[in-house]
């Protein structure tokens, strides 16, 4: 367990090192920790993926159900993202209804997928205005060692790529399930990258102790053609306009690296 006292003592050290372009764990300022991505570990789920980002571990499972479309988009399937900060993942997580941190996490992941139009939702309509497929993306944090956003977003898009839905045909408004499976229609691959600000310097992939020291963070999701499709600043500090512009360039570059893990050439 990371004790708060240890961090207070190390706070200065972390901050001083970063001013000199170095980090406590030996990484460069824009280096990620080691990333491991595994897909399809949960057979019961329609799709799943686990991301290990250093010691941070996030599991995402997808489920597909039949439900009602939103009234303003009668011909489109529905995407629902939820995040659970389960108590086994950190001494600071408590059981109970989702708090603002888990809601924010889910909504950042959701925004990247939704705004990049990653899922071809118009292919998920069964009967316009009445029945569509609902895609549930459940983010399950298993171990919290910092940068849950990037790990969750990466696991979410990997789980969606891994998602298979049953073959079906529609007869008189009823769904008939046919043998076999087909992949969920995916057409974009958003990647979220978070920059933290410590001692006026930008770092990528802050781990837990750095998160406790950092003034603010900004997350940007980049879609496959390099456009920015979602953004979120967090934390009690601020960025200058120059830093934001610098961050967007770092993020663009890092997103290309990370996407290679999800989309195999």
């Amino acid at each position, binding site marked *: 367990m990371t004790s708060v006292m240890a961090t207070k003592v190390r706070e200065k050290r972390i901050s001083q090192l970063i001013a000199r372009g170095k980090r406590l764990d030996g990484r460069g300022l824009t280096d990620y920790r080691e990333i491991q991505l595994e897909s399809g570990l949960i057979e019961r789920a329609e799709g799943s993926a686990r991301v290990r980002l250093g010691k941070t571990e996030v599991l995402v499972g997808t489920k597909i159900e039949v439900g009602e479309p939103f009234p303003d988009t009668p011909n489109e399937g529905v995407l629902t993202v939820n995040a659970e900060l389960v108590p086994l993942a950190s001494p600071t997580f408590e059981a109970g209804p*989702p708090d*603002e941190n888990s*809601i*924010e996490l*889910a*909504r950042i992941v959701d*925004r990247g997928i*939704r*705004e*990049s139009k990653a899922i071809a939702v118009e292919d998920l309509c069964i009967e316009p205005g009445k029945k569509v497929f609902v895609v549930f993306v459940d983010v399950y944090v298993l171990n919290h060692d910092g940068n849950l956003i990037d790990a969750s977003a990466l696991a979410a898009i990997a789980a969606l790529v891994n998602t298979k839905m049953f073959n079906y045909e529609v007869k008189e408004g009823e769904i008939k399930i046919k043998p076999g499976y087909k992949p969920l229609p995916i057409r974009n691959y958003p990647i979220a990258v978070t920059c933290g600000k410590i001692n006026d310097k930008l770092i990528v992939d802050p781990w837990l102790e750095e998160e406790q020291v950092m003034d*603010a963070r*900004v997350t*940007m999701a980049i*879609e496959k053609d*390099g*456009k*920015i*499709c*979602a*953004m*979120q*600043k*967090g*934390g*009690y*500090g*601020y*960025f*200058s*306009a120059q830093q*934001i*512009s610098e961050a*967007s*360039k770092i993020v*663009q570059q890092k997103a290309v690296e990370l996407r290679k893990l999800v989309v195999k050439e």
Partner: protein
Amino acid sequence: MKTSQKKPEKLIDENDVRHDGRKLNEMRPIKIEVGILGNADGSAYIEQGKNKILAAVYGPREIHPKHQALPDRAALRCRYHMAPFSVQERKSPAPSRRELELSKVIREALEPSIFTEYYPRTAIDLFIEVLQADGGTRCAGITVASLALADAGIPMRDLVSACAAGKVEGRLVLDLTDVEDKSGEADMPLAYMPNANAITLLQMDGMLTGEEFEQAVDMALEGCKQINQVQKEALKTKYVAVKEAETEKEEESEEEEA
């Protein structure tokens, strides 16, 4: 029942005029009043286009529950809430996930402006009620909340001004309305402390290239600077009114004495 507004076919015409008659980089008209609620320690009201938003501040005051107290600073607590009648379809009064997220980012947008370290172990409670919404309520909410904090006499580094920029029908525009947000390509709310050159809130959904993003940031910053002027005027107006009321009182009592 109120019928829903029809979306105009084109939101920007060939002369770069927007559906409500504004230019691309023009803000909606803003009206602000400071200090309008009796009970609150500080309050303010804003109308920005059709948005009508109230903000109130209580505190620094004793914190309940006690375990939320912070040993080194005041805890800023923020609730952004929309009235059920503020939007076309009635909104359930229970806080939605969107409102919870906005409460968090608004708090983080305002906290850098406050000397919270002056009031350890207390609470500063901020309530934002959206009475009518037409796009950009989080920004207008931040703008008006910052004034409510100032009105409460809480020591601050700077006023926080917020404004959104975005992309509609391929063009970058300032201060999006609800239709522009819903049918546009991108919406990017931004909050800014002009004197500190500090961006304290930044969100975006939609699609922007790197270049468009930089232009949108510049556009939003310009918007924030304009809003900052309006904020300062509103604060001054309130203090002139207070001063006049005080001098009148003094004169009256002098007359009585004489």
